[in-house]
């Protein structure tokens, strides 16, 4: 009995010794990386425009989508919008912008648009720009985990979330535009 036990103990010591010495890998340790990122599909949500019409995210499959979360009382959001609208115009129908308002009242969206220049107001009419209202931030917070504004999610043509940009951004930046261009391939 003692011999069996000692043999078993000796074997265990040899196995562990070989493993930890790096001579043999028995796969006891799983590779643990510092950071891992795999684009995940965006939640299947349906947005509501101020006029009550609906737009489902799944209907935009095949296009690159910019999901921009904002609010009318957010100063940096106001600063960011012109370059965002210019970006959508530049890429024609390849990019769709869904600007998700987190205001408490949908009327604030109309007031917000009127603060822009005529050119800006016209850009909001672009058929590839959708201003939607997220009542009580139900979708922004509970579906996307967004609390601060502006935040923008970049979705590829399969509606996978490939990048998140936090804070106001200059969308004319060549590096950013290159990142977006690669999503068309």
């Amino acid at each position, binding site marked *: 009995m*003692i011999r069996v036990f000692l043999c078993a*103990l000796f074997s265990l010591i040899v196995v562990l*010794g070989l493993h*930890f010495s790096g001579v043999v890998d028995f796969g006891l340790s799983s590779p643990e990386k*510092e950071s891992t990122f795999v684009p*995940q599909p965006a939640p299947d949500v349906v947005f509501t425009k101020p006029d009550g019409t609906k737009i489902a995210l799944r209907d935009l499959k095949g296009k690159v989508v910019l999901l921009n979360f904002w609010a009318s009382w957010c100063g940096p959001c106001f600063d960011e919008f012109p370059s965002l609208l210019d970006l959508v115009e530049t890429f024609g129908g390849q990019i769709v912008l869904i600007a998700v308002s*987190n205001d*408490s009242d949908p009327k604030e969206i109309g007031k917000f648009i009127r603060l822009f220049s005529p050119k800006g107001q016209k850009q909001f009419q672009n058929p590839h720009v959708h201003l939607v209202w997220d009542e009580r931030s139900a979708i922004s917070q509970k579906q996307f985990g967004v*609390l601060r504004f502006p935040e923008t999610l970049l979705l590829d043509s399969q509606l996978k979330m490939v990048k*998140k940009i936090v804070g106001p951004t200059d969308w004319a930046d060549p590096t950013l535009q290159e990142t977006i261009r690669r999503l068309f391939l």
Partner: protein
Amino acid sequence: MKKLLFCLVLCVGAGAFGASVATVPVLHEGRIKPLDTFARVHLLSVYGKRSLPEMSALDWLVELMRDRETAFARPVFNLRNPDLVGHLGLEWREKHLYSFNEISAPLQKQEKSIGLLHQKQKEELTPVQRQLVDLYTASLSYLELAQSFSLVLPQFEITDPALASALKLEAGRHYNYMEMQTARPILENKIEKLRNKEPDLLNEKEWELARLGFSLERAAREEGSEILRLFPPQWHGGEGEWLSPWQSVRRGDGSPATADYLGLWRRYLANGEDGGLSAVALDLSKGLVSPWRLRWEVFYNRVDFFTKSLIFYLLGFLLLVGSWAVWPTRLRRLSFAAAGVGFLAHGAGLLMRIFIMGRPPVSTLYESILFVAFIAVLFGLILEKTRRNGFGLLTATTIGTILHFIGFSYAAEGDTMGMLVAVLNTNFWLATHVVTITIGYGCCFVGGILGHLYLVLRKLRPEARQKLKEIYRTSVGTALVALFFSLFGTILGGIWADQSWGRFWGWDPKENGALLIVLWLLFLLHGVLTKYLTQLGFALGMVVTNIMVALAWFGVNLLNVGLHSYGFTDSILFNLIAFCSAELVFGVGMYFWIRLRERES
């Protein structure tokens, strides 16, 4: 019977290894650990133990995050110094326990002076000052823990329907901080209009408005809570940083996955329902940590192998002592069985640590104590099995018990599975040099105990020549084994030092200590071979070996010099001096006492 036992083990194992909130991963002190360990470590820092009598550490943590009022009133701060208690203006209690509510006010009053103390070196502070600073730090961590999930706790209620309507909210319903964000601009706008109004002139509705605004502002200040890092990096370029709930939303690192996770936490804190929380947590951290490691660690925490092994070693020792009085054979067998069970529990604990940490269990001082005890007990049990004279059993149970107690004092310092310094983080050398050296230490201790045994037996029963000879021969054999491992380990250490630090030997205190043990054992064995040393002299020499090992193992860590100073500790000086003095007095005293008595007779 065997089938029943097997089924029982299977059921326990399945239950023990299942996912639960305890297995939720959290990043703390550079390591991803289960929430169970995180809770235990934090409770240990304030209460001094890893669980409360009335609840587990995890339940305590959940209560702290969910119900601050109750948690702050629960006496968990263990203050054992009457001077510290007096300094805080609190009444002295027999149980030494105080609540956060009781200590926070006096600590806040002394915030400035504590800040000044914090800037000084620890050596410049008196014990009371040191404990005051530690208590203040612990109370800040306590508060920060309580604030971890305040962003999802339903703490805001609007009773006035008109106000609720103006804020586009429902009256009578409770909202959390996140849900209040849409109403915040309107609220701030309304409060702005009240700024110029005298407080005495505010009506009830305006008071509610002001209170709401104040509560929201106070809640916003809690966004500094960073201690509970539950959210793994979500987006590319996260640099491996895990974030707390508040950090995640503040930095914009939120994602659909974290939103879902936060929602589950909200539900769990509200009504205690797991709702798949643990499964989502493990899924969120896929590729970053192995779920099995988390489960094993929770199991390891719950079973507490080393307390179990200590109990059995102690039982074995008591049974052995009992066998000297009555039923020698029966009690000695039971003692062997108890020590055997203790050894299995001990080994299981070490094995679990290997699986959890993915490295040999000799990386920290705490682990080396446990491993040395394991080797010493193994050696003792083998000796007992071969000699069957009780000496091996005495050695095993004594060393096992003593080293466990020493180990527990290190375990009380916090997480015993901490991160390693870079030089130690090489598994090959951990598996070879450190393991070999600690096996050598273990064998030295076995020989040391045998030396004690020889001296005591020679004093009490000098006529038992056969038994004395047996002990002597066993201790010589033990010294040979100890020499082999110590020498081999020292040479391997030199090779490792050459690879890590560019030199084979640097007269580092740790290296000198290891060399001292080797030279001492060589001296003793040469003394035996040349018959320069008598049996009595050799026994004294083995007792002195204990002192050598203690100095080489613990003593050099007090110096905090040299490349081996990662094990620096300043807390064991008195105990080390006491141990070495006691051993020296015992060894030398017994030697001369025996010589005197034998000369007289």
